């Protein structure tokens, strides 16, 4: 049995795992040692421990990287679960089709995108990734294979979309793409002085732009609380042929002994970023630059040093969303521990297809924190309480520490979901958030 050290994007957890691989989508589910468990592994772009299974095994899917069908008339694409979103775009953009939903990096697999029901900057228009999955095949440890869609085995579809890899392994999926004229986008950036102004700008931006997202200076306080930049974008309607390669321009070749992200660099960066000249501009931008700005820096996660970092992403629903977000930002500014940029986005009303899907109508705030130990845990405790008070929840894909009670409270359907878990599957995340229940 091969074993290897795996870590997730935040690098806080590093652990040895036994490794199984699917060499083909026709392969049988691996026979794991009795008493052990296995978890499907995509490209490890989840931040915390939801893609890890220390003391158990991982099931690699990177050999499932084949396209099966692409119809350039209808924009329906069928591919194996280990295909990266970047590979799909490289194939389909020149032929006039785009993924309806993409997260902030294109280096995630189709299986991973389904299992976390990922969302993008256009959630207010199109919902989450699962809303555009026509069907997929689910392989169970019992050797059964089910085609799941909103109509066929719909209960397994709902459990597996956002199902954190716990219901079995997805071998292939069929997605509906959306038409585009080319690779370019029209992007406009507007500065806002505080959270109220953000909410006002959003009203209009969300109705005229497919993509909207705001960057917030999480160190500013008082009247400037929640100041930042709102970016809004649409796919350009005229085509320009060029699709630059996905090659990284620069990379972080090693892990520095200490986190490069600290109070001094943060203050400087956030101030400079906010006051960057030429902000109120319209630009013609390649989709990679707008949608995947960090993909140009390979291994940027190493900047946080050997102790790694956490991301905190919550969503707070309804009326109280703006107030709750203000309280969260206050707590973060007070603690002076935030990271370069906090991301704020309004989720729309689309119904998420998964039992455990994260998105719900409201405001979602996401930011990175260097792993500084106890003081960070204290801040997280404070934020957790605020999120719970506002009936919000945290995003498992980004989480490596949320207390079990917060998960169970945020995802009241977790017990119904648990019935669909494959007896051979488990994850560090799942054990952590359900253990004391």
């Amino acid at each position, binding site marked *: 049995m091969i074993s290897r050290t795996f870590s997730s994007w935040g690098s806080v957890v590093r652990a040895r795992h036994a490794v199984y*691989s699917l060499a083909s989508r026709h392969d049988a589910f691996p026979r794991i040692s009795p008493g052990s468990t296995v978890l499907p592994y995509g490209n490890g772009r989840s931040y915390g421990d939801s893609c890890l299974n220390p003391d158990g095994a991982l099931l690699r899917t990177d*050999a499932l990287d084949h396209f099966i069908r692409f119809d350039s008339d209808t924009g329906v694409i069928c591919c194996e679960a280990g295909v990266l979103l970047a590979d799909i775009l490289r194939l389909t953009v020149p032929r006039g089709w785009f993924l309806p939903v993409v997260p902030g990096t294109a280096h995630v697999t189709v299986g991973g995108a389904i299992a976390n029901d990922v969302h993008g900057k256009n959630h207010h228009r199109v919902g989450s990734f699962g809303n555009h999955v026509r069907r997929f095949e689910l392989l169970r440890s019992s050797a059964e294979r089910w085609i799941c869609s909103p109509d066929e085995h719909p209960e397994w579809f709902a459990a597996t979309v956002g199902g954190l890899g716990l219901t079995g392994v997805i071998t292939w999926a069929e997605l509906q793409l959306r038409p585009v004229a080319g690779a370019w986008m029209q992007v406009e950036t507007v500065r806002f002085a505080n959270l109220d102004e953000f909410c006002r700008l959003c009203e209009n931006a969300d109705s005229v732009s497919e993509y909207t997202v705001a960057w917030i200076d999480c160190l500013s306080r008082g009247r400037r609380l929640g100041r930042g930049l709102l970016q809004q974008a649409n796919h350009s309607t005229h085509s320009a042929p060029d699709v630059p390669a996905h090659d990284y321009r620069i990379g972080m070749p090693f892990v520095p002994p200490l986190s490069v992200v600290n109070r001094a660099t943060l203050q400087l960066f956030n101030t400079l970023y906010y006051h960057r000249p030429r902000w109120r501009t319209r630009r013609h931008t390649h989709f990679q630059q707008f949608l995947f700005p960090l993909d140009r820096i390979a291994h940027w996660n190493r900047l946080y040093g050997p102790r790694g970092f956490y991301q905190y992403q919550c969503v707070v629903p309804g009326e109280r969303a703006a107030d709750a977000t203000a309280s969260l930002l206050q707590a973060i500014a007070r603690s002076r521990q935030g990271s370069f940029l906090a991301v704020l986005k309004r989720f729309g009303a689309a119904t998420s297809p998964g039992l455990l899907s994260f998105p719900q109508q409201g405001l979602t705030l996401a930011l990175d924190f260097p792993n500084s130990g106890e003081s960070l845990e204290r801040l997280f405790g404070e934020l957790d309480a605020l999120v719970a008070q506002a009936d919000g929840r945290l995003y498992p894909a980004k989480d490596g520490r949320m207390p079990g009670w917060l998960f169970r409270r945020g995802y009241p359907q977790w017990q119904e979901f648990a019935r669909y878990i494959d007896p051979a599957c488990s994850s560090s995340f799942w054990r952590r958030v359900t253990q004391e229940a």
Partner: protein
Amino acid sequence: MSGTLIIGATSAIAESTARLLAARHERLYLVARNPQRLKAVATDLAVRGAERVGHEVLDLNDLAAHEPMLERADGFLGGIARVLIAHGTLSDQKACERSIELTLRELHTNALSVVALLTPLANRLSSRGTGAIAVISSVAGDRGRASNYVYGSAKALVTAFLSGLRQRLRHHGVAVITIKPGLVDTPMTAAFTKGLLWARRERVAAGIVRAFDRRTPTVYLPAFWRPIMFVIRALPEAVFRRLSF
């Protein structure tokens, strides 16, 4: 439009190479022994843009089946312009030390089946006066080592055979290309712990396509293996014998 015959098309390195050719809308004929995986690879290459993709299932140790396969490939491609021979097995050295039968089988897969392909291919291509034949040998064939000399000697045979074939075909318009990868992260080497010397298969594939395009006689992939292997070959036997790697 050039047509490429790929032998051992389900090999990770061969498949990566084929993806680059498919993106250039070339015509491909694929041969491999696992029918399901072969079909998946063929379909994928068609989606990725290959002009046409043909495929057939063959265990390459079945030498009698080579000639009819070449005939079909020739027909499908409208004349084989290029060939990549990529199949192989990383022999279990310790097991070979206990079994002559296994040793001979490994030599058959990694050397004799390749030789059996090369002769009729050379004759076909040279009679037309055009084409290129590339074979994936290995740095392991540059000098036999205790840890894998069964595999290494098979690759050494292939390397030597190609060298002679290259001289023979020099005036016949056919390029003979010896590909010598170092350590590549593929299913063949899944059990090894990967370090600095390891290359991604995509990088090796890009090197193979470059060698085809430039008709380079011998390439080490990545190129840093050339000086390393130069030193290893130059070590006096008295010194080399005492090393263990």
